[in-house]
């Protein structure tokens, strides 16, 4: 996804999706995650969606179905993850991490008749237990497009780190 040229709009199934619409979607997601509103977060997915975080040694072409990952959630696991995060017994997130998310460099790419690919940069700052960590990377999402808006079909966060630093776990949604 490094091609030069304009990536500010794509046509999906006859409907033009502009960068502002995708940015609004990503900013809204950042807001609900920073507010720990996991039901609202789950509502941003279509049924059958996936959530993936490759390991930091990830190389282009590796499949989560054939190699190790940090997160390789199918739809059942996304729902199980949300249920867990809403529980007081998710000890790693009780009390929850305070997060603050920045999303930038949003670019749109054609995918198929009812979805688009989006790449974007993220910085997530996380505060917990007297620590303050930064997670830097980029998103490689696939968004389903319909008349009533956008939904995640694939939500993929790719870390820019060489490894996760001390204490930097992925118990929250990256």
């Amino acid at each position: 996804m490094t091609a030069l040229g304009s990536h500010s709009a794509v046509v999906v199934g006859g409907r033009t999706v502009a960068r502002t619409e995708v940015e609004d979607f990503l900013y809204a997601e950042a807001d609900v995650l920073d507010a720990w509103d996991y039901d609202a977060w789950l509502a941003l997915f279509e049924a059958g969606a996936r959530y993936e975080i490759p390991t930091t040694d990830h190389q282009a072409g590796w499949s989560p179905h054939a190699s190790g990952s940090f997160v390789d959630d199918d739809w059942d696991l996304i729902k199980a993850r949300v249920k867990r995060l809403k529980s007081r017994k998710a000890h790693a997130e009780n009390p929850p991490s305070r997060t603050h998310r920045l999303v930038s460099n949003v670019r749109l790419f054609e995918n198929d008749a009812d979805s688009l690919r989006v790449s974007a940069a993220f910085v997530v700052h996380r505060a917990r237990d007297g620590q303050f960590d930064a997670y830097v990377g980029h998103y490689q999402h696939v968004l389903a497009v319909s008349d009533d808006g956008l939904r995640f079909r694939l939500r993929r966060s790719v870390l820019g780190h060489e490894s996760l630093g001390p204490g930097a776990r992925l118990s929250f949604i990256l």
Partner: protein
Amino acid sequence: MVDADDVVAPMIAEDWDRLTFRVNRDAYRSEAVFAREREQIWLRTWLYLGHETEIANPNDFKVRTIAGRPLIFCRDTAGEVHAFLNSCPHRGTVLCREAEGSAKLFQCFYHAWTFRNNGDVASIPDADAYGSSDEFRDLMSLRAVPRLETHEGYVFVSFNPDVPSLREHLGDAADYMTMIEQQHAGGMTTLPGVQLYGVRGNWKLAVENAMDGYHFSPTHNTFVGYLRESGFAVTDDDQYAYNLGNGHGLLVLTGHGGRISMIWEPRFGDEERVRTEVHRTEMVDRLGERRAHYVADESHILFVFPNLLLFDIEGLSIRQLEPIAPGQTDVRAWQLAPRDEEPAARALRMKTVVSFVGPGGLATPDDIEAYEAVQRGIQATAGAVRTELDYSDMSRGMIDEVKRVPGRSIDEGAMRGFWRHWLDAVDLGDRLRVTGDRPAEFLEGRDVR
């Protein structure tokens, strides 16, 4: 209780009248203890380096820091496996600055000294400036780690040239590693996608956590709930922990979850049920009924002292511990899978393993929370006037040692075995205090052949 005339508080206090076993929390906090461990354990015994399948082809290499020492783990052009110090013999520069790759030669960028992947000097520019250049060249080959031995593809190194053989060190742990290799006729391979993460906790907290079935239900409450909802009846009944000697330990779990290709559970789906039946039949043909039972029907968490944990559970993970500081440990985790696995089975395996283990799983983050909360919490009693408070308790199930029967997985016997070995290994035996009659130590291995 610590006697008033004790000059130094005991590191481990066993009281067989009260059935208590307590570990001095300095063991997790002290810079002096950490330095002593580095010298007495990490530079003296066998350490897990990596798996042969990580460097499957001639010229493959990985760089990896073990016991604080940067190493090159490589396979030479002839196919032989080596571990070299990743440091130019000339001035000490890091020789290979790539994390992994394939190379016949390693060239130091600083003065262009070049080495073959079997350690020999390939070239030293303007070598005639050195008086006796042939002799000089021979002295300047790459520094190999003094010992390297392999068991079932697991490559171990030791910085101690006089260490007894690896097999002697592994003892009863060796066969549990063989059992993993026997799960599939074509053997096992590590996969790309290594979980690299740091925890703010002492390395021994990670060992304790792995040998501790007691924490499973409360710590992993949400994961147990997920398994129950998907139709698996989680239980801790009739499951045991074994002290295998030399500091190695084993938890045998039969009620914590299914095992891909060996014990089906509903969340694995109908296709996997068929694959499991076929594979289980093949295992009996190949291994016999009894051995196939031990290989297939039990989950094992094996700790190989001091830095290797094998999670032979829903799937297989190799976890390596690398202490950084008293309160900080690097963790590396590889997934191990059958070489000849069909894509659907591999995808199920990856999804299932990662849903539990690793810093993004639904369970490991709560373990990390536990080590980190212990590391912070034990500051509360550090340097306390009442030194008897500065101990962690691992007494659960001591009565089984008196009765000489294997301890339950939900007791703390495997931890006690680890700590007793640790105290000898760091040569602090004079800081063991035993009150009452200590039962003779016994090994708790089983006949699983």
